C-alpha cells in the first residue's frame, strides 16, 4: 500500500461557529451563508476571491453544494459536498487539504450548517437512509437513541461499564459548556442529575442524548504562506485518517474504523496519544466517545471507563475532552455536529478559544463518526492538528 504523503505547507485558519439556536425559522442556506461570511471576514476575503468550497448539511434539500454556488454568488474552481454527518468535518479537511496541496484551489472554505424547524428532526429521520427505513424505523421508531441504546447495552454487558462511567463524560462536558457562552446548555449538571434523568431508551437517559438545534461551523484551508501573508493564526495538519464500513462482520458495533488506521495516524504525525493536549471525540452518545478513546489508542478495548475514572476531562484537567461542551452540552446542529470538535480544536491550538482555552494547548486529536445507516455508524475519521509555534 502506498504511504500517505504529508500535508506540509497546508494549514487551517479562521475557525468560526455561528451561535446555535434550539429552533430556527431560517433555512440551512441562511445558516451556511452566515458561517461562510464570518470565516471569509476573519481572513479578509471577499466571496469572489474564494476558489474552493465544500459543504455538509442535512437540511439543504433540494439543493446541494451546486445550488449554493449560485445562491451565494460563489465561483469556485473546486467544489465538494460531503454527506458524512459526524465525520464530515475531518473528511472535508482531508479533501480540501489535498486540493490546496495539489494546486486545484488556493483557498477552500469548509462549511457545515443545518437549520432546525419544529418538525425538522422528525422529517430528517423519516428519510435518512434506505436501510433505516427498511430495517430500523419500523422497530419502535426510536431514532438514533434506540440504535445507540442497543450498542450501549452491549458495551455495558461486555465490559462491565456502569451508567456513572458514562455520566462522568457528560458531567465534565457540561462543566466545559458553562465556560462556552454559546453552548445551549446553561445549567450545571451533577452525576445525580445524570443518573436520575428521564429514561429515553434503556439504558440511555436524557443526558446521554444531544439536543438537535440550528447552527453552523466553518474554517478555511490554505497554503501556509497565504495564512502568514494575511496574518492569520493557523494550525498545521500532522496526520489524518478516514475509513468506512469497517468491521462489517461484527454482530454489533463495539469498535469503529479507527482501529484499522490508527497506527498510521500516529506514525505520520510522529507522536502518540500521550502527546495530545486535548481530545475532541464525536460525542453523540458517551459510549461513542469511549469507543473512540479506545480505538484511538488511549487505552485498551473496554478499558475506557477505567481510564476516564482517573482523569479530569475539563479544560483545566489532565485529559481535556470536548472542550466547548461538545454536542452533548453545546447542541447538535445537524451536520455541524461533525465540525464542532474540529473548529474548536483549531481555536484551541491557535490560542483563540478564550474562556474554554486549554493552557498551552499545542496539539489536538479530533475524531469524527457518522451516519447510522442501519445499526451502526459507518464513517469514521480522525486528524491530529498542531498549532504553529
Amino acid at each position: 500500500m502506498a504511504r500517505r504523503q504529508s500535508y506540509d505547507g497546508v494549514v487551517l485558519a479562521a475557525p468560526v461557529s455561528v451561535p446555535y439556536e434550539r429552533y430556527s425559522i431560517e433555512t440551512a442556506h441562511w445558516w451556511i451563508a452566515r458561517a461562510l461570511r464570518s470565516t471569509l471576514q476573519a481572513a479578509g476575503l471577499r466571496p469572489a476571491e474564494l476558489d474552493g468550497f465544500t459543504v455538509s448539511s442535512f437540511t439543504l434539500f433540494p439543493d446541494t453544494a451546486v445550488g449554493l454556488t449560485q445562491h451565494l454568488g460563489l465561483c469556485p474552481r473546486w467544489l465538494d459536498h460531503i454527506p458524512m454527518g459526524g465525520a464530515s468535518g475531518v473528511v472535508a479537511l482531508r479533501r480540501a487539504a489535498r486540493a490546496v496541496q495539489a494546486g486545484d484551489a488556493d483557498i477552500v472554505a469548509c462549511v457545515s450548517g443545518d437549520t432546525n424547524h419544529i418538525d425538522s428532526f422528525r422529517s430528517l429521520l423519516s428519510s435518512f437512509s434506505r436501510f433505516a427505513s427498511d430495517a430500523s424505523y419500523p422497530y419502535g421508531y426510536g431514532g438514533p437513541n434506540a440504535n445507540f441504546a442497543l450498542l450501549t447495552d452491549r458495551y455495558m454487558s461486555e465490559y462491565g461499564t456502569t451508567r456513572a462511567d458514562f455520566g462522568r463524560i457528560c458531567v465534565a462536558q457540561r462543566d466545559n459548556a458553562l465556560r462556552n457562552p454559546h453552548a445551549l446548555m446553561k445549567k450545571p449538571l451533577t452525576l445525580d442529575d445524570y443518573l436520575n434523568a428521564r429514561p429515553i431508551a434503556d439504558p440511555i437517559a436524557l443526558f446521554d442524548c444531544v439536543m438537535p438545534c440550528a447552527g453552523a461551523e466553518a474554517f478555511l484551508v490554505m497554503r501556509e504562506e497565504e495564512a502568514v501573508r494575511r496574518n492569520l493564526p493557523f494550525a498545521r495538519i500532522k496526520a489524518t485518517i478516514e475509513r468506512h464500513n469497517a468491521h462489517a462482520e461484527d454482530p454489533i458495533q463495539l469498535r469503529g474504523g479507527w482501529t484499522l488506521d490508527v497506527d498510521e495516524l500516529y506514525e505520520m504525525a510522529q507522536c502518540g496519544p500521550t502527546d495530545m493536549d486535548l481530545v475532541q471525540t464525536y460525542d453523540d452518545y458517551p459510549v461513542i466517545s469511549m469507543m473512540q478513546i479506545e480505538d484511538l489508542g488511549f487505552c485498551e478495548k473496554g478499558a475506557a471507563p477505567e481510564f476516564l475514572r482517573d482523569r479530569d476531562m475539563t479544560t483545566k484537567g489532565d485529559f481535556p475532552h470536548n472542550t466547548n461542551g461538545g454536542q452533548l452540552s453545546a447542541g447538535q446542529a445537524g451536520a455541524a455536529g461533525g465540525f464542532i470538535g474540529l473548529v474548536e480544536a483549531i481555536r484551541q491550538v491557535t490560542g483563540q478559544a478564550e474562556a474554554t482555552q486549554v493552557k498551552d494547548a499545542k496539539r489536538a486529536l479530533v475524531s469524527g463518526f457518522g451516519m447510522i445507516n442501519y445499526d451502526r455508524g459507518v464513517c469514521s475519521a480522525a486528524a491530529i492538528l498542531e498549532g504553529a509555534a
Partner: protein
Amino acid sequence: MTTPLQPPARKNPQKRTLSPTRPPEARSRAALGLTAAAAEGRFALQVCGECGAVQYPPRDACSSCLSVDLPWQDVSPKGTLIAETQIRATTNLYFKDRLPWRTGTVQLDVGPSVICHVHGDCVKGTRVTLWNRLDRAGQGVLIAMPEERTPNMQDDPQLRAMTSDPKHRRVLITDGRNPNAPALAKALQTAGAAAVYVGEGETWRPYPERAALEALGVEFLALDVTDTASVTRMASEYGGKTDILINNARFLRPGGVLARRDTGFARDEIEVNYLGLMRLAQAFGPAMCGRTGDGVNSAAAWVNILAATSLCNTPEMGCFSASQAAARSLAQSLRGEFRASGLRVMNLYVGPTEDDWHQPLPPPKVTPNALARDLVSGLQNGLEDVYCGDVAKDMALKFQRDPKVLERELTMGGEG
C-alpha cells in the same frame, strides 16, 4: 411469562376512541420481499444465488460478491438476542401510544444481525426464534420469540399488535346458511372470541345449520349480502362492535360459459360473491377502520373466503371462478383502502369443499372443520394469505411458479 390478556372493560361512549395510527410504512422495493413472506407467515431472507451469503437488510446486490441474483429463501430463524432496549420516547404516533416498546439485536445463526421487536418472554443472551409478521402498516417485520412456547405468549402486547387474534374480539360471520358456519363459530369461540354474530338472509326459510348454530349460542342478525338495505341496517347497529368480519357468503353453480344458456346464475354469482363483498365493505368498512386503535377489542381483520380457482380459472367452475377472481381483485383494492387504518384483509383460499355443489369432484376436499382451523390460525398469526387444503396449496405453488403453465394445465381440453 406473559400476563393473560383480560377482557376489555365496557366502552365509555363519552371517551374519545384512539385514532388509527400505524408504524412507518415506507419500504424499498427489495424490502417488500419480507412483507410477501410475512403475508404467509414465512421467515425468508435474501440468499445470494452465486456465493450463498445471507443478506440483511434487504438490498439489490450481494455484500460479499456483488452478484445481483438475490432470491428470497426460507432460512433458519434461530439466533441469539445480544442486546435489548425499551424505547420510551419516539416521534412516531403509533409507537408513542404504545410505549414502552421493546426492541433488540439478534445475531442470526445464518449470519446477519437484525434489529427486531422482542417478545416479553425473551431473555437477553439466550436463544430466540425470529418470526416474520405483518405489522399494522401491513409490512413484514421481525419479532424475536422464545425458543419454546410460553404460557399466554400470544397475549404479549407487541405480538398481539401484529396479529388479528380473535381472543376477546367480536366476530361477524356473514352467512349462517353456508355449511361451514357452525364449524367457524365453534372454532372462534374456542379461540376466545367474545361474541359471534351470524348473518341470515331470508330468515323465514329454515336451513339445516340453524340448530347447530343455536346450540353454540351465537347471535343471529338479519343480514342478506344481496340486499343493500339489510346490510346498511345491520352495519349501523353492529358496525361499531364488529372487530373481525368473515365473509363466507357464496353463490356457486358449476359450469363454464357454454354449459349455461343464459347469464342468470352468473348474475347471482356476481350479486353475492362480488357485489355482496362490496356492499359489506361499504357498510362495515368505515366503522371498522375507525376502530383499529380501540384497545383489546380493536377492529383487526376482514376475512374473505375465496375459491382457490380465483387465482386461475377452471372451466368446470368457469363462471363461478370468474366471480371469485372479481372478489379477489376487489379484496386487493380493499387492502389498499384499509391500509391507512391498519385493518387487515385476510384471504383464505380454499380448494373444493365437502358440500353438495362439489359432490362430483374427487378428493381431497376441505371439511368445514379444516377450513375453520386454518382461518382461526391465520387470524392468530396475522396472515394476509392462507391456502387451505392440499388443492389450494398446490394451486398457490403453481401460480407462484408460473401462472401461464397453471392456466394451460387447468384448461386442457379432453382427448379428441
